[in-house]
C-alpha cells in the first residue's frame, strides 16, 4: 500500500489553462481579476494620464501660469476645430470685443469669422521643467505667439484657465500623495503597534483614535490652517497643509492596519511560520505583509480623493494654499461670488477636474479592493 503520486493524483487534471492559474503569483492573479473590472481599468488609465500631465505640466500647458493678457480678461472659452472648409487646419475661433453700454465693462464674444491657427509642439512661453531644465516647447498652442488661446476661457485678469488647470494638477494631485504618505506612516506605525502589542497599549491608542474621529474635521482643519502664517514661503505652506490634512485621516488608516493585523495574527499560516522558527521581523515582512500590501494599496487609492477634496475645500476658503501657488482650490477662490459664476461659469472648470479625478480614483480603488484578495 505504497502511496505513489500516480495513485492519489488521478484527478488533479492539469490543463494548459489551469497550469497558468496554478503557478500564478498573487500579483498576477490580482491583475487578472482587476482586468475584468472594465470601469476600473479605464479609470486607472485616466488617473495615470492625470499624473503624467501633472508630472510634465510645463510641457502640457500652453502657457505658464503667470502669463496674463489683461485685455482678454474674462474671455470665454474658444472652440477648437480641426478642419476649415474640409481641409486640415487646426484652429480656434477668435474674439470680438464689445463694451457694455451701461457698465462700460469690456466683454468678449466668440467671433466665428476669425481664426487663430493652432499647432502641436509649438514654441511659446519659456519655462524650466521641474525648475531645472529650460525649454519653451508646448504640446499645443497658437502658431503665432501672442494670439489669444483660451481653451477654457480666461480668468478675471486674463490668464489662461486651461494652462493654470494643468499647472494646478501638480499641486493638487501631490498634496494628496504627500498627505497620504504621512498618514500612512502614522497609521501603519500606530495601527501596527496596536495590533501587535495589544492589551493596554492597544486600548489607549484605540480610545485616542475614537476621540480624534469624533471631532468634525473641517473646523479643526480651518483653525489649524488659519494658524499658518501669511508670510511663509509656498513650499512650507504646501507641506504644512499636507500635514494638517493627514493629521485627521491617519486614524482611519490605523484602524485598517490594526484590524488586518489582528485578523492575520489568527491565521494558522502565521502560527505555522512562527513554528518554522521565523523571527518576528521575518514573520511580519515575509508572511504578513504580502497579504497586507494589496489591501493597503486599495485603501490608499480610496483615501487620496478625500485628501484632494480637503485641499480643494481649504484653498477655496482661502485658508489653504495661497496665490501665487496654483491649485484647483486656489483657482476656485475666484468663484466664491454668485455674480462671478453667473457671468463666467467656465471658472468652475477646476471643479470638473476635481470631480473627474475623485470619481476615477474611487472606481480604481473599488476595482483594486475587489482584486486585493484574489483567492
Amino acid at each position, binding site marked *: 500500500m*505504497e502511496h505513489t*503520486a500516480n*495513485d*492519489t493524483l488521478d484527478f488533479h487534471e492539469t490543463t494548459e489553462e489551469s497550469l497558468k492559474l496554478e503557478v500564478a503569483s498573487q500579483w498576477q492573479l490580482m491583475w487578472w481579476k482587476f482586468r475584468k473590472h472594465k470601469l476600473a481599468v479605464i479609470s486607472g488609465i485616466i488617473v495615470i494620464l492625470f499624473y503624467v500631465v501633472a508630472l510634465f505640466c510645463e510641457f502640457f500647458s500652453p502657457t505658464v501660469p503667470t502669463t496674463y493678457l489683461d485685455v482678454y480678461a474674462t474671455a470665454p472659452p474658444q472652440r477648437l476645430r480641426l478642419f476649415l472648409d474640409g481641409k486640415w487646419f487646426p484652429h480656434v475661433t477668435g474674439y470680438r470685443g464689445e463694451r457694455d453700454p451701461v457698465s462700460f465693462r469690456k466683454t468678449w464674444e466668440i467671433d466665428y469669422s476669425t481664426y487663430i491657427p493652432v499647432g502641436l509642439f509649438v514654441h511659446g512661453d519659456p519655462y524650466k521643467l521641474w525648475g531645472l531644465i529650460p525649454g519653451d516647447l508646448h504640446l499645443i498652442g497658437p502658431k503665432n505667439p501672442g494670439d489669444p488661446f483660451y481653451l477654457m476661457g480666461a480668468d478675471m485678469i486674463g490668464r489662461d484657465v486651461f494652462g493654470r488647470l494643468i499647472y494646478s494638477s501638480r499641486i493638487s494631485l501631490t498634496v494628496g500623495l504627500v498627505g497620504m504618505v504621512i498618514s500612512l506612516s502614522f497609521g501603519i506605525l500606530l495601527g501596527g503597534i496596536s495590533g501587535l502589542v495589544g492589551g*493596554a497599549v492597544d486600548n489607549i491608542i484605540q480610545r485616542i483614535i475614537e476621540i480624534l474621529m469624533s471631532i468634525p474635521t473641517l473646523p479643526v482643519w480651518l483653525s489649524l490652517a488659519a494658524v499658518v502664517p501669511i508670510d511663509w514661503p509656498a513650499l512650507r505652506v504646501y507641506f504644512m497643509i499636507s500635514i494638517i490634512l493627514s493629521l485627521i485621516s491617519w486614524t482611519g488608516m490605523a484602524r485598517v492596519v490594526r484590524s488586518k493585523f489582528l485578523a492575520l495574527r489568527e491565521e494558522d499560516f502565521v502560527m*505555522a511560520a512562527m513554528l*518554522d*522558527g521565523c523571527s518576528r521581523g521575518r514573520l511580519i515582512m515575509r508572511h504578513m505583509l504580502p497579504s497586507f500590501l494589496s489591501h493597503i494599496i486599495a485603501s490608499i487609492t480610496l483615501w487620496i480623493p478625500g485628501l484632494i477634496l480637503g485641499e480643494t475645500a481649504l484653498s477655496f476658503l482661502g485658508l489653504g494654499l495661497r496665490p501665487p501657488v496654483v491649485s484647483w482650490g486656489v483657482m476656485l477662490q475666484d468663484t466664491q461670488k454668485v455674480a462671478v459664476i453667473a457671468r463666467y461659469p467656465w471658472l468652475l472648470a477646476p471643479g470638473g477636474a476635481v470631480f473627474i479625478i475623485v470619481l476615477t480614483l474611487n472606481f480604481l480603488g473599488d476595482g483594486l479592493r475587489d482584486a486585493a484578495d484574489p483567492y
Partner: protein
Amino acid sequence: MVATHTTQQVAPELTMRSDDHLLEVNHLKMYFPITQGLFSRVVGYTKAADDVNFYIRKGETLGLVGESGCGKTTVGRCIVRAYEPTSGEILYRDPDGGVTDLAALEGKEIQPYRKDIRMIFQDPYSSLNPRMTVFQVISEALRVNNLASGSEMRDRVEYLLQRVGLRPEYIQRYPHAFSGGERQRIGIARSLVTNPKLVVCDEAVSGLDVSIRAQILNLLEELQDDFDLTYLFISHDLSVIRHICDRVVVMYVGKIVEVASGLDVYVDPKHPYTEALMSSVPVSNPRARDKGTRILLEGEVADPSNPPSGCYFHPRCRYAQQLCREQAPPLKDLGNEHYSACHFAEELSLAGVRMV
C-alpha cells in the same frame, strides 16, 4: 473506600522517569488572563490547562481527546511552544540523550527545538499562506534555520512531496491550485521537512471528508514507520483516536481525567466522564443499536474561568457523592499504565464502548 496507599501522583522529577520517554509534561498550567477596562486590568483567568501531567513514549502515538473547550489544543500549542506556559515543565529528550525543559526556554533558546517538534494544523485552507508557492511554504523551516539551501533544499522538498503523495512537479504551484486533502498533504510535508522527532497533529483530519480522511490516516501511519515519528494526536473524533493511537489521554475542563492504553480507555474506562464519552460514540453498525444503555450527559461543559468546586465533572456525573463536591481528585495510578482522576475509580464498574 479509597485505596490511598496505592495513590501515587505522577511525580514532578526533573529527569525523565523512563528512558523510553520522549516527552514528559509535568504540572503544566496555561492560564489566559481575562482583562477589563482601559488599562486591561486582569480580573480573572481562563484555566485552559490546569496541572496537566502525561508522557509520550518514543515512537508511539498518544491521543488527546475531549469535548471542545477542554484544553486539548492549548496543551498541544504549549508543547510546540506557540504559547508560553504559565508554569510547569515540558521535558524533552534530545536525539543525543540530553533532557531539556522546553517550558523554561526563552526567546532564541527555543529555536533549535522547533525543528524537532512540529505541528500539523486542522484547517488545510488557513494553514497554508495563499501567497507562497508550495516550495516556499515547505522550505521555510529549512531556510530560516539554515538547514539546507540551493539544490539540496529543492531536492528535499521534492522528495517530501513525493512521499506525501504529490507530484514533485507541483513545487512551483500556489496552494489555491489544490483541494483540501492535497493541502493537508502539503501541510504534512511542511512538518516533516526538518526531520522532526515529535509531530503534534491538532485535529489534523477533522476537516476532511470520509474518504480523504482515510487516505490521510493511512499516510500518517505509513510516515510514522518510515520516518520514525512520535505523534501527539489531538482529536475530538473517538473513532479516529481509536484507530491511530497506542495510548489515550482524556481531558475535561483543563484537567486530565484519564490516561490509559487505547484499548483500556474504550473497553474498561475508569472515569465516569470517559464512560459517558464512549457511550456517545455512534457505532457504525445498525445491529448494535441499543438506545437503552446509552449514558447521556446532563448539563453543559463547565466554564474554565469559573469551574465548579471539587471534581469539575461532579455536576454532570451520575455517580457524584459529597466527596466529589468538596475535593478535587488527584490523578491516580491504577496499575498497568492506567491513570484516573476519580475518587471512586477502583470501585465503580463502568461500561465501555459498545462494540459489536
